């Protein structure tokens, strides 16, 4: 069985950039998936499941990032992460069991 690789380019829109809270949300979301997930920015590649690694990008507002997942649930992982970025890291009301209040 060949490994599925899914990529998508996203843009960070928050004026604060990819700071600690968004980095945590990315890592937390990525950890729900079995796939290997990486973020790529200008040739730099980091593990999306590590807050520390995500922060090393120092991605400011308007930065373009490529999300790349490799594994059985790659499509779902990319969908969830792209959605998180598109929502500007605001909580998704439809997945409210995570952290209410």
């Amino acid at each position, binding site marked *: 069985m060949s490994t599925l690789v899914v990529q998508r380019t996203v843009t960070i829109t928050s004026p604060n950039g990819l*700071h600690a809270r968004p980095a945590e949300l990315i890592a937390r979301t990525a950890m729900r998936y079995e796939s290997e997930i990486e973020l790529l920015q200008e040739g730099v590649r980091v593990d999306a499941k*590590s807050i520390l*690694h995500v922060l*090393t990008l120092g991605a400011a507002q308007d930065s373009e990032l490529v999300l790349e997942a490799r594994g059985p649930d790659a499509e779902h992982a990319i969908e969830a992460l792209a959605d998180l970025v598109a929502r500007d890291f605001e909580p998704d009301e439809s997945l409210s069991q995570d952290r209410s209040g």
Partner: protein
Amino acid sequence: MKFVDFVARDAIRTSIEVEEKEQVIRHMASALLEAGKIAEDECESIIEAILKREELGSTGIGRGVAVPHTKHPSVNELVGAVAVSDAGVDFDSLDGEKVHLLFMLVSPPDRPGDHLRALENISRQLRDDTFCSFLKQSKNADDVWQLLEEADNNQFVS
């Protein structure tokens, strides 16, 4: 942004005795106060803002490192304190590990870029195992400062 650009040399504390999250944050804020980096009448407000930020999600970023922080209108520039805990602090980090290295950041609300660059620098440097373990073993502020300077001079990053 380099460590020496935002870490206050007089706000470095090693072998801290406190092991509880709020106490550590209070201890580090006191260090910033003693270093003259924050105002006495703003200290409590800064502590409360940092604690409130922690409620949103832990700033434990993994590898035994935490970056408790807040924006605060009382500071004119980004100021930082460093603490080293031998026993480790329970910080609810995502990776479940206790925290041994803490970088506290207080930044002016209108300078998100500086804050982001400080986080970038901290995380990039601490990705290096040698630097990370040397810092954790530091026994006094001078040792920490020297390591930060060496990191600034790219002696750890390959």
